[in-house]
């Protein structure tokens, strides 16, 4: 389904409550493909991988993605001067930034993240890790939290087994740039059998314009472990110039491990470009609950892939996004089942104000042999502006015959009857709108099951609504 504020006619809301699925291809005009295979790692050393990525970087242009004429995500307006070039002295080797570690958490970062009990925290500012903290009791029990560049040296066996195991390095120039030039990074290892109540926080922060941040995260959950990871992506507001965050994230859960992974992304008012790939692999009897909250960035392209790789793995993939002003968000979320039996439950909600553009492609892919897979994908969108555009494209690729897979969704606008109802109770229009939008996001937001994060996201939603107030009024009158 698809809806545009201008021109194109809206799709019927509540369409496709469920689609009967037979083996074969059932795809609408989708643009992206799942990684769905081995990554670039697999026996090559880090130096070899960096060299190969550099090769790909040199021989590629800034990426442009086009979907049948109606949707274009183009990074060509990104200033290439920003990217580390092959001539750059740091290209192809690790940056030694250990002297940066004592710098501590910058104020704009500390102010943006809830102060709450945590198991550990690692903060990367621009190109370097500036802060690492780990509960000593957990360190004693074998937990590792450190910059990934350190892990490459100090935990070589783990690093070489898992690094880039499922991530590619050469699909596009920015992915190659990350694989060639990454520095700092985060490595988290939770050993077998360990249950950690408080979250590990991984922070990528950008201090202003002119930064190219190549974030790289590797998280390993040992057998029977249980833990939480909260990633925060943020930037200091800036007026002029551009910055880039091109990151790669991988998380692997071994037998019966359980992880709740949440990400709050808000790059603020500066022109931050974000091209990131994230992969979560769920092992035998393991479970992952993954919830990205994508709340701002000038131009954002996310590939998010959650794969059940071994029998009886299960996952819940929730997400929300809210674009404003001139922002452009392009999200591809994959619910991948490589073996069965397996379970999946994908539920995303997105809203748009201003002249922003948001596209969500959701793909259920069930590989041959992934019998007894049961999964469902739903995407709900809410238009808050006549000039915004929201595309939601669910699709299903099934190569097994004993499965259930379906998708559904709705395209909505603010309901004037609800606003009048609330007005009759004394709530002014902005308050009523805020309640409706919060209510719209609530089924996903409440799944964070984490009060400080929920409050953080609610606050950001409220701020966006306040900023878009005139726009929302204009839309109401236009209708």
């Amino acid at each position, binding site marked *: 389904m698809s809806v545009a504020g201008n021109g194109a006619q809206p799709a019927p809301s509540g369409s496709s409550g469920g689609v009967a699925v037979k083996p074969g291809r059932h795809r609408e005009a989708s643009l992206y493909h799942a990684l769905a295979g081995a990554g670039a790692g697999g026996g090559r050393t880090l130096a070899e991988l960096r060299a190969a990525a550099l090769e790909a970087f040199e021989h590629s242009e800034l990426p442009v993605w086009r979907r049948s004429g109606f949707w274009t995500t183009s990074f060509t307006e990104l200033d290439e001067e920003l990217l580390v070039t092959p001539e750059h002295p740091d290209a192809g080797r690790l940056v030694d930034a250990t002297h940066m570690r004592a710098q501590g958490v910058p104020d704009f970062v500390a102010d943006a993240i809830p102060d709450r009990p945590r198991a550990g925290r690692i903060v990367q500012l621009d190109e370097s890790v500036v802060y690492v903290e780990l509960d000593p009791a957990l360190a004693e029990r074998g937990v590792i939290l450190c910059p990934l560049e350190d892990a490459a040296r100090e935990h070589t066996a783990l690093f070489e087994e898992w690094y880039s195991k499922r991530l590619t390095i050469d699909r596009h120039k920015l992915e190659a740039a990350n694989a060639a030039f990454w520095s700092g990074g985060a490595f988290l290892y939770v050993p077998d059998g360990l249950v950690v109540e408080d979250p590990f926080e991984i922070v990528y922060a950008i201090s202003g314009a002119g930064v190219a941040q190549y974030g790289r995260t590797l998280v390993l959950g040992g057998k029977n472990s249980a833990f939480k990871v909260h990633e925060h992506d943020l930037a200091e507001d800036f007026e002029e110039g551009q910055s880039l965050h091109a990151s790669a994230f991988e998380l692997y859960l071994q037998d019966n491990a359980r992880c709740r992974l949440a990400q709050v992304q808000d790059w603020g008012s500066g022109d931050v470009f974000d091209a990131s790939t994230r992969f979560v692999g769920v092992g035998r009897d393991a479970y992952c609950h993954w919830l990205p909250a994508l709340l701002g960035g000038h131009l954002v392209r996310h590939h998010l892939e959650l794969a059940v790789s071994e029998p009886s793995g299960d996952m819940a993939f929730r997400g929300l996004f809210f674009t404003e002003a001139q922002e452009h968000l392009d999200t591809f979320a994959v619910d991948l089942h490589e073996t069965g039996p397996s379970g999946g439950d994908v539920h995303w909600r997105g809203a748009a104000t201003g002249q922003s553009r948001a596209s969500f492609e959701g793909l259920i892919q069930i590989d041959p042999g992934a019998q007894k897979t049961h999964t469902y994908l739903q995407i709900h969108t809410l238009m808050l502006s006549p000039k915004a555009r929201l595309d939601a494209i669910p699709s299903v690729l099934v190569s097994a015959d004993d499965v259930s897979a379906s998708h559904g969704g709705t395209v909505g606008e603010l*309901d*004037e*009857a*609800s606003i*009048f*109802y*609330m*007005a*009759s*109770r*004394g*709530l*002014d*229009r902005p*308050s009523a709108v805020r*309640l*409706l939008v*919060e*209510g*719209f*996001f*609530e*089924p996903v937001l409440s799944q964070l099951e984490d009060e400080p994060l929920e409050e953080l996201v609610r606050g950001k939603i409220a701020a966006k609504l306040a900023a878009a107030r005139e726009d929302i009024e204009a839309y109401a009158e236009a209708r």
Partner: protein
Amino acid sequence: MADLEIKNLHVRTEDREILRGVDLSIDRGEIHALMGPNGSGKSTLANTLLGHPSYEVTEGSIHFKGQDITEAEPHERAKSGLFLAFQYPVSIPGVSVANFLRMAINAKRDEPIRVKEFGQQLQHAIELLDVDRAFTSRHLNDGFSGGEKKRAEILQMAMLSPDVAILDETDSGLDIDALRTVAEGVQRLHDEQGLGALIITHYQRILHYVKPQFVHILMDGRIVLEGGVELVERLEREGYDQIRQEFAQQGEVAL
């Protein structure tokens, strides 16, 4: 001037004139019933009194507590003490009854209500209206039965303590137990808080549980007959048709 003073009210929607000169006055502590056949303009009057944007006042005025509110925003009318219990309450997914009530109460105040005070008020209203405590943690009207929605309306009315409430066919679709609860709730709020009410209905049965002092009959956008409860009895005997015949002869309504 009465608390709610409606004068010569003409209202149109989508190029159709629905109210054609309504005069009506309601004071705090008075219970009025407004009756009339389908399409006579009852719901239009209710929505217009709260400022629904689809209804345009073309002539006449609405005053409330001395202020001309003919053009006021809906939420301003509510804050000044008017209330509308909806015929079809909408659901507000993601917002609990209790949270919604707290926000509505705070909208009328300068300082947010204290948690304890709110809890006490809520407890009192729950007992008054015989609703389940768990009810208040459910999302407002989301998946509610018809009876639950109407109870939620009356619960909101009790919590917001309006001076004048308009109940738009609150009795429709209710079984006899729900009807009694709702009607007794209105009667108690009248007795305890001095609520003034305009009960809009086209059945007589709610009026067995709540006793109006004034009864108005609306036909073709005009109030054609006014009196006391004896009017209700007459309606029960004769039906609207007889009254229509009578006023058609006077040229007030169409046959």
